[in-house]
């Protein structure tokens, strides 16, 4: 049954619901996707400066360059391993002036900047031992353990090292002492006494990139946590035994699985529980660390956490982490050829995260990543903004050891590349980009229960699904192909189905986002169409959420199977969704057919559709209508195209200043692998989403200084 007609639809641009609110009272908080600092609303735009890696004399010029770029916030890590000069001995500038964190923050304050401080304990930052003291990583009590009890090594240069255990009580104790020391410097400098307005707990918490399901953690404290997790999940040993088809005498009798050996659905529960425990372990550890930071006086401002590349395969979800930190985002280090990855990740944040935000948006790169040029960084930023990113931290803004490509050199002088960032930041602030909305009527709902199965069935051991995705594959590339007693390999099929729909929606010019299956139900209510894979088993909670949304008016596309087993592989009477459409998607053509049917039946909007369809457009609007139009060309050759307009509109290219206009069609050229950011001129008079053409004569002519009809560049 079709949903409401276009004219009856509520506008997608509306006040944000409760999911936009931080969970507790803060002296600085997040509102309208920006920092609310006193009466000021500050966009989440910052740049990374590593004070300890610069000469003290370079601090002021570096920060002044940052100010000149228009960035209101400076971000820095605080490296435990650098400040610790001996067990229990910390140098915050007494011996080495470059380590004077307090002086650095005071200087930022003096220059009118806010500060985003990230004290780890894990910081990576291309530091040896990822910024941890050597004594910590080689303390056996702190080390994560493999199934055979060995340390778990991370392969990164310049030296492989055993990674810490997120469960280790000793590690948390040491971290607490570190936070106490940092707190002495940072707490007195929290806003308004000082510049600190954002804090981050830990960094890219993905088990230090050794996140394969059976890589770790078999540390005694982790195994105790496993049993506590089972007790919490099942309540009784009887319930656990029913789910695991086992006869454990106690929770402690359930040994953690050390490799995937399930051959049937019934045998999967143990492995799915283990994968779920990984998620709980990380989230619990971050919660503990945050509480410890707060005990050390670092509180009252929003907390941030960043997820690394390969998020599609990580043992973490944004909704799960948003229970620990107010602001959870993705790190972006992508070349131009990774257009689809940038788009997919951003659409996930746009559909799922409280604020679509990049705690690290790579400007340049470390030497051991695939090389990134300036054009890559700029493309990545613009492409992410096009698909809904609302704030970012330019990492690294100022050059340093083990990095190349920063727009400001280590002496604080701006390089030629800085100019593009200055223009971009200026335009984002000018249009209030963080407040704009991109309308998406369709949501692809990501099923976490199948994602867990993908993690468990990865065949590449330490090359985890997240790692495979981070190096250019998909999170299911390494999964086994056996059906495990289902009609097909669920662990790979779910991803393929979502990908087919993503391709089909893109081809049809229909905007969509990804909503995590664990996300707040309010996220689902934003969309008229929900598409979610379903197989023989499903999470009862997720299924209920999508059925609830269908009851409220959304059309639910699911399939190929109506689930009959819950996540413990026990029979369950799943609700048959209202407005449901069960589909079998095997090929791209199947998805295209379903999308075409949905588009026709529901009159789905295809705003600012471009031809050729190789050009992608996104439009960002406020209550007055469109404000920014992005035209994206991911191809390796320039494209001349046309964009259908809802009415006469004038645009200004954000970078070149070129003026473009059209009545019903905008004609333009987009160079190879480029994103054109077009600001709608005269926004107050711009037509709203409803295509009611406004006579050009009705708008002030004086704003148009040039640009004939369809001014192609």
């Amino acid at each position, binding site marked *: 049954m079709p949903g409401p007609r276009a004219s009856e639809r509520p506008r997608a641009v509306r006040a944000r619901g409760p999911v936009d609110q931080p969970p507790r009272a803060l002296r600085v908080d997040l509102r309208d996707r920006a920092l609310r600092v006193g009466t000021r609303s500050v966009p989440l735009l910052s740049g990374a400066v590593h004070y300890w890696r610069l000469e003290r004399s370079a601090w002021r010029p570096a920060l002044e360059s940052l100010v000149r770029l228009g960035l209101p916030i400076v971000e820095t890590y605080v490296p435990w391993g650098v400040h610790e000069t001996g067990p229990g001995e910390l140098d915050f500038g007494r011996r080495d002036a470059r380590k004077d964190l307090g002086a650095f923050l005071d200087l930022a304050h003096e220059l009118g900047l806010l500060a985003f401080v990230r004290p780890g304990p894990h910081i990576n930052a291309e530091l040896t031992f990822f910024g941890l003291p050597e004594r910590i990583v080689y303390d056996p009590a702190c080390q994560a353990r493999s199934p055979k009890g*060995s340390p778990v090594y991370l392969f990164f240069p310049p*030296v*492989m090292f055993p990674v810490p255990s997120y469960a280790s009580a000793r590690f948390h104790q040491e971290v607490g002492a570190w936070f106490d020391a940092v707190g002495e410097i940072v707490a007195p400098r929290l806003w308004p006494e000082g510049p600190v307005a954002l804090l981050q707990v830990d960094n890219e918490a993905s088990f230090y990139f050794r996140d394969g399901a*059976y890589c770790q953690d078999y540390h005694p404290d982790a195994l105790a946590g496993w049993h506590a997790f089972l007790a919490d999940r099942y309540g009784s040993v009887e319930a656990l035994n029913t789910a695991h088809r086992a006869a454990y005498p106690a929770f402690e009798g359930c040994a953690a699985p050390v490799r995937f050996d399930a051959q049937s659905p019934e045998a999967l529960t143990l492995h799915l529980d283990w994968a779920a425990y990984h998620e709980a372990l990380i989230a619990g550890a971050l919660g503990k660390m945050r509480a410890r930071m707060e005990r050390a006086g670092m509180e009252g401002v929003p907390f941030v956490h960043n997820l690394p590349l390969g998020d599609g395969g990580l043992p973490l979800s944004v909704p799960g982490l948003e229970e620990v930190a107010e602001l959870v985002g993705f790190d972006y280090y992508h070349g131009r*050829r990774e257009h689809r990855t940038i788009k997919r990740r951003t659409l996930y944040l746009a559909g799922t995260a409280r604020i679509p935000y990049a705690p690290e948006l790579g400007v340049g790169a470390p*030497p051991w990543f695939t090389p990134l040029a300036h054009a890559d960084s700029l493309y990545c930023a613009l492409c992410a903004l096009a698909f809904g990113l609302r704030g970012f931290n330019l990492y690294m803004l100022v050059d340093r*050891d083990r990095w190349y490509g920063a727009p400001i050199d280590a002496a604080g002088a701006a390089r030629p590349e800085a100019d593009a960032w200055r223009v971009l930041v200026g335009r984002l602030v000018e249009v209030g980009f963080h407040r704009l909305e991109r309308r998406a009527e369709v949501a692809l709902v990501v099923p976490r229960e199948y994602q867990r199965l993908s993690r468990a069935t990865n*065949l590449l*051991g330490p090359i985890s699904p997240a790692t495979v995705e981070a190096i250019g594959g998909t999170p299911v590339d390494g999964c086994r192909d056996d059906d495990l007693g289902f009609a097909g390999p669920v662990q790979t099929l779910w991803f393929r189905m979502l990908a087919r729909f993503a391709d089909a929606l893109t081809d049809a010019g229909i905007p969509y986002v990804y909503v995590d299956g664990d996300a707040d139900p309010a996220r689902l209510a934003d969309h008229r169409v929900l598409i979610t894979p379903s197989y023989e088993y499903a999470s009862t909670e997720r299924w209920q959420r999508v059925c609830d949304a269908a009851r409220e008016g959304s059309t639910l596309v699911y399939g190929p199977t109506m689930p009959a087993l819950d996540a413990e592989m026990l029979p369950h009477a799943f609700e048959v969704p209202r407005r449901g459409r069960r589909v079998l998607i095997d090929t791209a053509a199947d998805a295209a057919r379903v999308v075409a049917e949905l588009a026709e039946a529901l009159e789905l909007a295809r705003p600012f559709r471009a031809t050729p369809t190789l050009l992608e457009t996104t439009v960002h609007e406020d209550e007055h209508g469109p404000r920014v139009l992005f035209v994206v060309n991911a191809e390796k050759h320039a494209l001349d195209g046309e964009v259908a307009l809802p009415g006469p509109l004038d645009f200004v290219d954000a970078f070149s200043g070129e003026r473009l206009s059209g009545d019903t069609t905008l004609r333009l050229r987009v160079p190879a692998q480029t994103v054109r950011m077009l600001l709608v001129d005269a926004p107050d008079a711009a037509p709203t989403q409803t295509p009611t053409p406004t006579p050009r004569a009705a708008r002030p002519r004086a704003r148009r200084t040039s640009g004939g009809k369809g001014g192609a560049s």
Partner: protein
Amino acid sequence: MISPHLRFEGFDARSWTNLLSLFAPGLRDRVEGDPADTDAPEIDLREARSEVAEGTLVIVRADDGRILRALHTTRGRVRDLAYDGPQDLERVARAYAARRALELREGVLDELAETLAQRLERTDDYATQWLVLARIIRELTSSGKIHAWPRPVDDVPIPTSGMVRRALDIVLPDEHALVVVLWEDGAPWTAVALRRRDGAVDLAAGPDLIFRWTGPLGGDWRRDHRVVADAVARAVAPVHVGLFAEASQIRALLRDPDPGAWARAVAVRDIIVHPTPPYVAVALGADAARAVARTTSRWLGGFDALKPLAPFASYVRGRVGEVGSITALLGFDPLRALARSLAERPVRDPQPPAK
């Protein structure tokens, strides 16, 4: 050999990519390749026929021989793979347009990680750690848990870290620097200065730093090389060896299996080695000099190239006893091994990455 305190600075995207691409010719393909046309790529035999060979075909098999997964690293999942076992690797690699093919026994990568963790010592540096890893891979290959095609360096013995350290003592002694500057069309293409201190390489400085140390150069690299070497000596450490050349020359030499190729290039000043430490002199020894003579004689219409090289050859003979041969120390000739490894990748016209 590689310091945990290694400093890396002074590169930009172009110079760093250029340097890496000398030894990893597939890098540019990765950086500049076409964007994917789907989020979930797949390939079958029919589609593969029209593709250019790239990436690796990975096949994971169970102990009972079942194929658990087949994957092309750049083209995604492989549908309907027909595969008869390790002897079939070359055929399937070619059929699916892959440069390489790997068969992995289920669980072998976990075994590799576990064995590595058991063997690593806290005092191991990164180079030593990789030698340990390489040895484990070789063991797993010997035991039939990993099969690969092709195997260009299969007969190259894996040296111990002691052997590598002794070789490094010759190439780059402690408290000395090594500098390489490559030009293209008269402009610097990439450069690196390495310093060894306390037994380990602790600095990799790129062109931004090197040319800050030198100040403005004259523009003729055959003259400028002395200025560069002197500047690095002042800023970093005495230069033990410097290599200066056009980038195209080095790309070709790295692929040339002829042991006389480097000597020939030095003799005709296609590359300049300055200063020339004893080990380089030895490496450019009498056999190589004869190779020079053969070729230059041909080029120069019978001119006897051995004659002008006589003082050089005499110098070499005098120093042979002073230094060990790197080949003897390592058990293989690293340049020849590299040439064989790179030979499968044709030299591409360099395309500098877009700014």
